[in-house]
């Protein structure tokens, strides 16, 4: 099997990897913020239900969550059948939303009370204070920890193979099974490295862009 044949086959897997990455990121970033509002809610039931939910999701392996979401409904005889990739995406979005929500929460709580009060005495509404004053400061503070999570997400996509979604690593494993050649398994590392290099570059760029002020 030639280098190009292998590359072509792996590229298919890489497509799935990118799809999982992209959709998870796009959905988790806003959903995480909603979960943050839940966990910071002044209404105790909402606050505690959200906190317990986040605890369960962060306290169990993503791999288990994928298996549960995909096989669970069928094993309970529910009339719901999720396509494999959909199950993976649901698990990833829920999982990463919870992780992102905790980063958001840390960022929001790190903003001093004085910033809110300054907005209040200037007659701003709560929404204006959040979006005009707090949010940008939060974003600046969370870019580094978010960067870490995002790079982790790139590699976590390989967990999708537990329910046989043919992402990058699974694609390489299939080549071993069928062709008996091993090197593609290590070649996939190059795909991950290139992609995370690109992300690192973008994240550094964002960080630099926001460094026009300190504090």
């Amino acid at each position, binding site marked *: 099997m030639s280098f190009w044949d292998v590359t072509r086959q792996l590229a298919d897997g890489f497509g799935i990897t990118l799809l999982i990455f992209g959709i998870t990121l796009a959905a988790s970033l806003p959903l995480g913020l909603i979960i943050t509002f839940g966990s910071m809610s002044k209404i105790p039931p909402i606050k505690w239900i959200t906190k317990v939910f986040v605890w369960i999701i962060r306290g169990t392996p993503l791999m288990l969550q994928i298996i549960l979401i995909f096989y669970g409904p069928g094993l309970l005889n529910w009339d719901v059948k999720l396509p494999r990739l959909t199950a993976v995406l649901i698990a990833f979005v829920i999982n990463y939303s919870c992780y992102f929500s905790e980063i958001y929460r840390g960022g929001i709580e790190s903003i001093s009370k004085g910033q809110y009060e300054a907005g209040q*005495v200037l007659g*701003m509404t709560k929404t204006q204070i959040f979006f005009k004053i707090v949010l940008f400061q939060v974003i600046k503070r969370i870019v580094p920890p978010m960067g870490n999570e995002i790079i982790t997400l790139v590699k976590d996509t390989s967990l999708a193979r537990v329910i046989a979604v043919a992402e990058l690593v699974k694609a390489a494993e299939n080549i071993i099974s069928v062709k008996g050649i091993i090197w593609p398994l290590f070649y996939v590392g190059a795909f991950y490295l290139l992609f995370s290099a690109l992300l690192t570059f973008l994240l550094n760029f964002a960080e630099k862009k926001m460094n026009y002020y300190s504090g």
Partner: protein
Amino acid sequence: MSFLEIKNIFKSFGKTEVLKGIDFSMERGEVLAIIGSSGSGKTTLLRCINFLETPDTGMISVNGNVLFNSDESPYSDAEKREKRLHFGLVFQQFNLFPQYNVLRNVSLAPNLRQIKGKKLSKTEKKEIKKQIDDNSRRLLDTVGLSDKVNNFPCELSGGQQQRVAIARALALNPDILCFDEPTSALDPELTGEVLRVIRELKTSDRTMIVVTHEMNFARGVADKVIFMADGVIEEYGTPDEVFGAPKSEKTKSFLEKSLENP
């Protein structure tokens, strides 16, 4: 009826009674200095006036309008927003918005109030924005920062930041401007520029309440002085009365200590 009337303000945090019945009034154009040791309740009083805390009981009115009355049902957020605009507040820690430049720090609130949520044509919006910008530049000029409009707060000294904060508080043109220990967070050599700006504002006929530890400033600038201790007004009068001939023992001992460690 006086310009500002404060009646019977009580405020507790849990079991701690911080304000135990505060009554005083002010006339338009007056400068009132509130002095007292830490924990005497002077900052809490200022925060009550600015609606950052809600008094347990009491009444606040400005120019005949009752802004707060504990007998009325709790005010909605929108009501509070309108009421608190009679006051401006300059914080001890400045609390400038670090992501905006100096001009934007001053013009942000007027922009939000005058443009957001209103049906305006593009040219109208542009016109209002220009007015706000011009006014903000003028205010920054009065505090002596016309050359810093495009700088970010982190590029300024503490004294300059506090002067921006004063301009920001003036931008919404409040009836009464309040200062919460405006020089306490500053290095000694920077307090002068801030106090000078406050002094200059007085000549422009501003009504101001200044919570301060600067006894010389209180004595030299204020028309009236309140000395607070243990949540009550221990002494009230002109600077000459309070500093020159204090009636209360507590005031005397406080002033002695303050003069030893200014």
